């Protein structure tokens, strides 16, 4: 149980996908303008990551030993089609959830964080339960980064910012400072 919690914490804070691996940077810079969209995108991310963890574990355990060179292709196709299926199912079963996650589901599928999760989890040799905890931590980490970024950006809109700095340059510098702050969490490991 201890190990599972460590996997979760390390993916959530210490090795935050967005701020230390630079995965999922596109939505991080693109969609982080408003707090509520950022939160919903983050939740959709967690959701897709959990599905991905199950898919990649199954593929890795049962199919890839026979054809290791198909790893990338099979991951991306299976993830994309599963997400599409799940999207249809949600649309049918719970229109409310669909409205909340809505357009983000298909967008997220081609997000580097998702494929990154599948690759890292199989590289580390995680089983199904470990993989699920890893996915939960990674998704939570992405959500955390998105929400923090959106919060800061909402504040900056009220500030008087020189025109040269506006836009992506400013966002990247803010992200750099956030990333520096998250490096502090690396100390959690030695403390244990």
């Amino acid at each position: 149980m201890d190990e599972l919690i460590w996997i979760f914490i390390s993916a959530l804070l210490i090795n935050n996908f967005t701020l230390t691996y630079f995965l999922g940077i596109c939505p991080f810079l693109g969609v982080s303008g408003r707090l509520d969209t950022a939160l919903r995108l983050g939740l959709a991310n967690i959701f897709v990551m959990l599905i991905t963890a199950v898919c990649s574990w199954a593929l890795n355990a049962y199919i890839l030993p026979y054809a290791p060179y198909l790893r990338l292709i099979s991951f991306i196709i299976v993830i994309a089609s599963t997400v599409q299926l799940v999207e249809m199912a949600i649309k049918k079963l719970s229109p409310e959830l669909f409205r909340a996650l809505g357009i983000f589901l298909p967008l997220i599928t081609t997000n580097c964080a998702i494929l990154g999760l599948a690759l890292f989890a199989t590289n580390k040799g995680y089983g199904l339960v470990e993989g699920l905890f890893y996915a939960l931590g990674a998704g939570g980490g992405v959500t955390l980064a998105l929400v923090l970024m959106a919060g800061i950006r909402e504040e900056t809109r009220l500030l008087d910012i020189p025109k040269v700095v506006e836009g992506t340059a400013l966002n990247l510098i803010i992200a750099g400072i956030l990333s520096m702050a998250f490096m502090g969490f690396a100390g959690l490991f030695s403390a244990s």
Partner: protein
Amino acid sequence: MNQPQTINQSAEEFLKGLWKENPVFVAVLGMCPTLAVTNTAINSLAMGLATTFVLVFSSLLVSSFRKLIPKQVRITAFIIIIATFVTVVDFVLAATVPQIHKELGAFIALIVVNCLILGRQEAFSSKHPVGLALADALGMSIGFTFALLCIGSIREILGSGALFNIPLFGDGFEPWVIMILPPGGFFTLGFLLLFFNWLQQRRAKGVGHRA
């Protein structure tokens, strides 16, 4: 009659990727590899070349099959083509330069989801003949490699006081460790973009004066 025009057009498609529509500095595409592996110049170069290979060959294939790929499944088809070439690159790098392959790690595989590559297929290769698609892919990938090399060199020079592993400064130089850590990637690109913004504004003002 038609010949010079196509050559001109190819040259134009090639050149736009280098500067005017540079994928990293102007379009801000393909951010994950741009920031993640640029902690040394040599890694950046390897990543740039790997991306070049994948982009050029995918464009070639997509553009030659553009009339055969049904519109509804085109994105899936593009991704399968791209993933195939990435697998090739992954194995080639593992066989020839295992050290660099190990350092780049999963980021080689992540070239598949580089939005730059899929974006070029969707926006250009699937609509243009092979020659033009090739020119566009080459221009874009050279622009991408150049940008990566820029960031990688800055980070390596400041972060470890060296370039391509050759020490540049004497013993008195205290390396800025932060530059080779993740935050350094964000800062370097942020300040580079800031610098380009500044250049652009200055030029815009200059034009305004003359007019």
